[in-house]
């Protein structure tokens, strides 16, 4: 992490970049926040460790409008989002100096709590170069758990540690993929319609429409969301009933279908712990099955599955046949 800080200070000093976009330590040891660093001394609380799960690509939409270049630290999965935004002309490549930071999987604080570790005061082993076990100093004494057990679900199905776009790379990465990407989706598909309906009814009823998923999603970055404008007479500030819960999440997933890079941020930030990535991953699974493997953000020119077609696509009736 120190090497990253030194390099950032260097670039800031020699004027190649006007500001650095990274993470700054939060009030607790496990919630670093994305932040701008413009001066030498700000770097005091710069941090890059196992808890820095935030995808900084979306901030580049606004950063592209600022004066001068912005240095941004992107993890491998973030770079897909950046390229997708580039393809959609939302970010300006010249205004970004990208440092591809190494990643060995990010941690999920909910999982840590589920392991019974509460009242955390400090953490060791979460650093980038840290060890495979995490030791926590908590109010109730010292607790440990393995790094893998605390890892985010998305890291278990990681798309690979290769950075899609960068100006330079700092730090090594370590493979963390040890699960099938569509396992969860297939588990739900195997349920009966009643069970599926009950499952999503339960999950979505927790939704408080805080819009965190929408605010963090790089693909879901309209200037004015359709749920906030009068274009569709569907302006909804809060879910009044179960229909609107479903409506919001289905339409959100539909709007990002073919553009979602499966970065998993929506599930990570959801305060209610709803597995929102299931919707997007279901669309990705369908698209891969019906229209051929497609990874959003992996290239610059190819047209997304929903903005192209082939003459012999499957008929919609295939959904009924699959049962």
């Amino acid at each position, binding site marked *: 992490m120190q090497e990253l800080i030194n390099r950032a200070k260097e670039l800031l000093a020699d004027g190649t970049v006007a500001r650095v976009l990274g993470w700054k330590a939060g009030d607790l040891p496990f919630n670093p926040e994305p932040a701008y660093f413009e001066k030498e001394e700000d770097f005091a609380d710069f941090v890059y460790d196992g808890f820095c799960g935030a995808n900084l690509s979306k901030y580049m939409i606004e950063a592209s*409008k600022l004066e001068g270049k912005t240095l941004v630290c992107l993890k491998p999965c973030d770079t897909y989002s950046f390229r997708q935004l580039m393809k*959609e*002309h*939302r970010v300006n490549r010249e205004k970004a100096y990208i440092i591809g930071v190494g990643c060995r999987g990010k941690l999920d604080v909910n999982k840590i709590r589920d392991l019974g570790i509460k009242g955390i005061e400090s953490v060791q082993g979460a650093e980038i170069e840290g060890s495979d076990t995490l030791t926590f100093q908590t109010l109730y004494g010292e607790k440990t758990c393995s790094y893998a057990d605390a890892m985010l679900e998305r890291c278990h199905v990681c798309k690979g540690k290769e950075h899609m776009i960068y100006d330079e790379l700092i730090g090594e990465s370590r493979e963390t993929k040890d699960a099938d990407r569509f396992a969860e989706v297939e588990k739900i598909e195997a349920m009966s319609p009643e069970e599926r309906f009950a499952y999503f009814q339960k999950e979505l009823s927790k939704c408080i429409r805080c819009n965190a998923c929408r605010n963090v999603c790089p693909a*879901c*970055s*309209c*200037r*004015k*969301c*359709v749920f906030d*404008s009068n*274009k*569709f*007479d569907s302006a909804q500030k809060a879910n009044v009933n179960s229909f609107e819960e479903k409506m919001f999440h289905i339409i959100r997933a539909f*709007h*990002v279908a073919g553009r979602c890079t499966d970065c998993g941020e929506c599930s990570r930030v959801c305060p209610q712990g709803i597995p929102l990535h299931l919707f997007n991953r279901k669309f990705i699974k369908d698209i891969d099955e019906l229209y051929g493997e497609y990874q959003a953000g992996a290239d610059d020119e190819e*047209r*997304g599955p*929903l*903005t*192209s077609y082939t003459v012999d696509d499957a008929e919609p009736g295939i959904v009924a046949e699959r049962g």
Partner: protein
Amino acid sequence: MQRIGVFVCHCGTNIAATVDVKKVVEMALAEPGVVHAEDYQYMCSEVGQEKIQNAIREKNLGGVVVCSCSPRMHETTFRNAAQKAGLNPYMVEIANIREHCSWIHKDVKEATEKAVILMRAAVAKVNLNTPLKAGESRVTKRALVIGGGIAGIQTALDIAEAGYPVDIVEKTPSIGGRMSQLDKTFPTLDCSSCILTPKMVDASAHPNITLYTYSEVEKVSGFVGDFTVDIRKKARSVDMSKCTGCGVCQEKCPSKKIPSEFNRGLSNRTAIYTPFAQAIPNVPVIDRENCIKFKTGKCGVCSKVCQAGAIDYNQKDEIITEKYGAIVVATGFDMIKLDKYDEYAYSQSKDVITSLELERIMNAAGPTSGHLERLSDGKAPKEIVFIQCVGSRCADDRGKSYCSKICCMYTAKHAMLIRDKYPDVNVTVFYIDVRTPGKNFDEFYRRAVEEYGVNYIKGQVGKVIPQPNGKLLVQGADLIDNKQILKEADMVVLAAAIEPNPDVRKIATMLTASIDTNNFLTEAHAKLRPVESPTAGIFLSGVCQGPKDIPETVSQAGAAAVKAIGLLAKDKLLTNPCTAHSDELLSNGCSQCAHVCPYGAITYEERQVNDHGIREVRRIAVVNDALCQGCGACTVTCPSGAMDLQGFSNRQIQAEVDAICL
């Protein structure tokens, strides 16, 4: 909220019979915004339109809903009427309570309830209508005719006569089409090439007509008034400017064993050939699959004997791109394949032939140079049997469900000609019904029966069995005398069904012209607009639209020409104003919409905007109204709803959904 007038039409009894129109009027008055509602027997009549116009003026109406027949019928009528009364024509909406309601529901209560709902949906939509003004787009004063048969030639001549340039694209090496293969034509029995060749010469000589023979249409883009067409001029391997048409090359060509398509495979032709003597342009074509020079690299006799030095082996296909205002489809027809009708032993005996093959046999330029003889042993037949409706009027999947319309007449013609030229030959015709409607048609058929003694038997033929002695045993039924007929014939002629040219479906897809399951092009309206395709700018001429004989083809060809001329005569075309529009404050400029636009009507601009005080330069989607056809694909790809379609906006369709579901 608009001031809305609702007008409910009785349509005589078509609507009033199963929809209580008074109730619809009463419910209309209860709708918010409706300030006037009335019903009338014929809303589309002059009187009906005046009622609308008076109501607009007296009640100062801002929107009109007409509950009547399908908008595809009278939307323009009511819009023009409203325009004359000073109301913007796009403030008129139609509720289809005839085809979609009164005609298909018997129960009055049910039908009335549905009519009220459809009325409510139309009122909800009109409430959100915005006045629109039709844009204008220019018209390229040039027409394209696809297909060089009599239909294509006649259409091209008529358009050219009106002073507009026309291009004919013909797939085969010469124009003339199916008619050039015929011997005589009914009902006047004059020789087919005698009446066709002059027209072919006129077409080739006319200054306004350009012939692209041995060429195919490859790509069509654009829309009415502004089509861009790529024509592939296949390589003839003969330089058309140098060739004098002397025909020496065809005599000397060593590869002579290729079945002649023109003679339906009954005779052979050389590798370098012109389809028939009167071919226009009279320039041969080298059939590269069967030419020894192209297959093995040896030979080259034709270039040696050609004094004009016109042979050019490395001539390449040429793509010509041209702009057109109107396109006429005249792709013609062919006989169906008879492999599924083996009860007639067509594939088992050479003496069972189709009527078109008989035309070639009786034609002086045909394979038997006009002598009527059996193809198996060349002897003159004594007994000939004609079988009608082979593959026509068949509801099973083997044949065509429609009646091919021309077979009864041409079979009577064949029978008459054979009896006239060879009086000692007996001709029997097995028929289901002889259909000879039309001027002098039935008299023609009766002459065949009464004057020439053709034996017509009402009943079909069950099977034809080739006998060891070379004759054909025909087993048919005589339903009048209630007898089963077993007749030994020397020759059996099948009046096979006709079907549209097989590659018309490819052309229809290119032109986005709608086509039915029998591969006939669908006309805009079966009775009122028979020569136009629903796709504006595309016209139908000849059998591509449905089975018809030469007199009808020529009259339809003229009609298609007039429609095309009507279009080309305009300098400006009113374009559909229901085009997409991008809201500059909402547009993300993410270029998803440009990907789905079939007309390339969307471009992007960096534009200075003031979004509620935020002044910045943004990348905005911009729609070119002249190119946009209003399909709406972009409005769904746009997540934020920035892209919306005028006339069918998101809120309007949602309002209709609400009105229907409440």
